[in-house]
């Protein structure tokens, strides 16, 4: 087990290196360097920057040097904890995304647990009562859940809440808590707002996971060991939960590897529609405004979240499935 985790951890630096290169290339992708576009933007809004300041900025980011030197400068500053300054907001990037990153993680994890809490019972009941009304109902529900883009769900719910209840459901906080430091009241307020984006984000995943679980469980339910356990008089529910579910759940856990990162980045679109204070809407704004260092930092945060998500699922899988840790240890 330890060997397995260490091996996973050793890949991390390499993955992060590749990801940082990709993020940097994305920063570089728009034509022209960003200082030029920044100066042009300033000129358009009537203010200007003197030549010395412009030169200082160019020097700082190494804009007159080859790409790899620029990358090296960027990554060194990054490792020292200096993400740079957002030219659009005129604020340090770390200040801009710190709080939002935390909320992104909270929303992601909440969605994740919600998905499993819903998908597990649905999958188990659909499989044990195959072709019942319940099973058909959730088959239809799952198909629709997968087919509906998350932003559609968000828009429709927003519209219904507005026309039927007369309330607007946007953001993660009430106005009085929006810019406050953390307090007990703020956490409660977050709890009151987070359920809607959580449910919207979770629907798609719930549908997928319940389908996988149902299919896996159906394969297990016809195996001879079930007959054997029944013959020995084990009660039906204990039997199902103790043996086939434990086997059928493994493929589900391995799907965590893609599911958790998918929630983190997938929340981007819902967050934009519902105007949530996560990093998603900020990425969109920075990309449209060509604030490329901010965009690069956010893309890198998404990559970081993806790496952590994959790592968590790898460890969970090894913990749940003895076959994996044995296989890895015997190599």
């Amino acid at each position, binding site marked *: 087990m330890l060997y397995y985790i260490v091996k996973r951890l050793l890949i991390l630096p390499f993955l992060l290196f590749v990801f940082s290169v990709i993020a940097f290339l*994305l920063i570089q992708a728009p034509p022209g360097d960003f200082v030029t576009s920044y100066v042009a933007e300033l000129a358009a809004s009537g203010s200007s920057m003197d030549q010395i300041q412009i030169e200082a900025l160019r020097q700082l980011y190494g804009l007159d040097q080859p790409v790899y030197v620029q990358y090296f400068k960027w990554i060194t500053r990054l490792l020292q904890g200096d993400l740079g300054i957002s030219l659009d907001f005129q604020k340090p990037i770390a200040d801009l995304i710190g709080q939002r990153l935390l909320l992104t993680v909270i929303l992601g994890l909440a969605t994740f647990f919600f998905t499993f809490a819903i998908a597990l019972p649905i999958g188990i009941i659909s499989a044990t009562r195959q072709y019942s009304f319940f099973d058909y109902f959730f088959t239809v529900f799952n198909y629709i859940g997968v087919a509906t883009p998350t932003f559609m769900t968000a*828009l429709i719910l927003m519209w219904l809440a507005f026309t039927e209840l007369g309330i607007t459901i946007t953001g993660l906080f009430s106005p009085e808590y929006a810019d406050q430091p953390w307090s007990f009241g703020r956490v409660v307020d977050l709890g009151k707002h987070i359920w809607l984006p959580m449910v919207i984000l979770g629907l798609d995943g719930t549908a997928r996971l319940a389908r996988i679980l149902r299919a896996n469980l159906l394969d297990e339910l016809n195996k001879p060991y079930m007959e054997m356990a029944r013959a020995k008089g084990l009660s039906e529910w204990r039997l199902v939960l103790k043996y086939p579910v434990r086997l059928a759940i493994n493929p589900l856990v391995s799907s965590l590897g893609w599911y958790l990162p998918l929630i983190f980045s997938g929340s981007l679109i819902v967050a934009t529609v519902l105007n949530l204070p996560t990093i998603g809407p900020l990425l969109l704004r920075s990309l449209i405004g060509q604030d490329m260092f901010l965009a690069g930092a*956010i893309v890198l945060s998404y990559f970081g979240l993806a790496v952590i998500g994959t790592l968590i699922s790898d460890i969970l899988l090894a913990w749940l499935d003895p076959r994996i840790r044995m296989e890895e240890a015997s190599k």
Partner: protein
Amino acid sequence: MTAETAVIDTSDAADAISVAPNWKLVWWRFKKHRLALVGGVVLFFIILIAAFPGFFSTQNPSESNKNGSFIPPQSIVLWDKGPAFYAFAVNGARNKRSFRMEWTIDPTKKVPLRLFATGYEWKVFGLFKTRIHFFGVANPEAGQKFHLLGTDRLGRDQWSRLLHGTQVSLSIGLLAVFISTILGLFLGGISGYFGGIIDMAIQRLIELLQSIPPIPIWLALSAALPRTWSVATTYLAITGILALITWTGLAREVRGRFLVLREEDFVVAAKLSGCSQMRIVFRHMLPTMSSHIIAAVTLAIPVMIINETFLSFLGLGLRPPAISWGVLLQEAQNLQSVALAPWLLLPGVAVIITVLALNVLGDGLRDAADPYH
């Protein structure tokens, strides 16, 4: 006598099964899947619309009308003490305070409709000009207008725009999947067939690509596309961006199939009889897995369609004047416009129906792909 016929019948059926070619077995199996058949029929009509959006439209999709914004959908009356085919006219008046047009349905004024009506000029496959439409206003000279799904902010006909969007969204999905299929087949194929170090390298590449969250990458790449590019260039670039990351799933599928097939007797036999590697791959291995590939491809298209919708919805995919479902939904991006004109959400319903049809069809195909099971 009857018993005898029954016996003969079953043996006939058994014979038919044992001599039927692969595709026939797949088809028999597929036919049993009712839901998938329904999905196929729905998809047929969607493709028909995507092929001739002009024919089914009632108005030029780009034609705006500044005095006709946010007209609500007008329903068609088919039965009025006998078969009928008309819609009620709408009356507009400007609200004195908000200066917004407000529309009421006028049950006394009828707009007669007819099938195969004459309307604006469109081109069949961009080649032949015609003015014939599937249905439309019976006498357009009188200045009567009819909007089945209402109009948008600029007074453009939502129904016609939806149909033209179908063409773009569906074709982007198909084209992107086509590119990623080629990439997936090629890389998955050589990975699975040769194995060894090539397999290792390609598998690591796939793992790397799959561990990257796609949405931020798509957004960043699309944002880097120059705004000055033409609609057609952006269309191709977006397709390429979508295909770039999604080929990995298919490559894995193909590789897995190849690994299994490589050990099969018929492949070994072909090898021993001196077939070239190309022949083994293309003549013997690929046809055996074609049904699996078709199923995987069918299931990949809806994912692409949803992704294109995401990108365009966020304003980073196709941009107006291009019309796609995502571009149309951009009009419904905030609560104000949705509350004012809920029918702007209808393109989303088109997305849901299409994706549902494709998913159901793909599931049916996947179940039927292995008829020997």
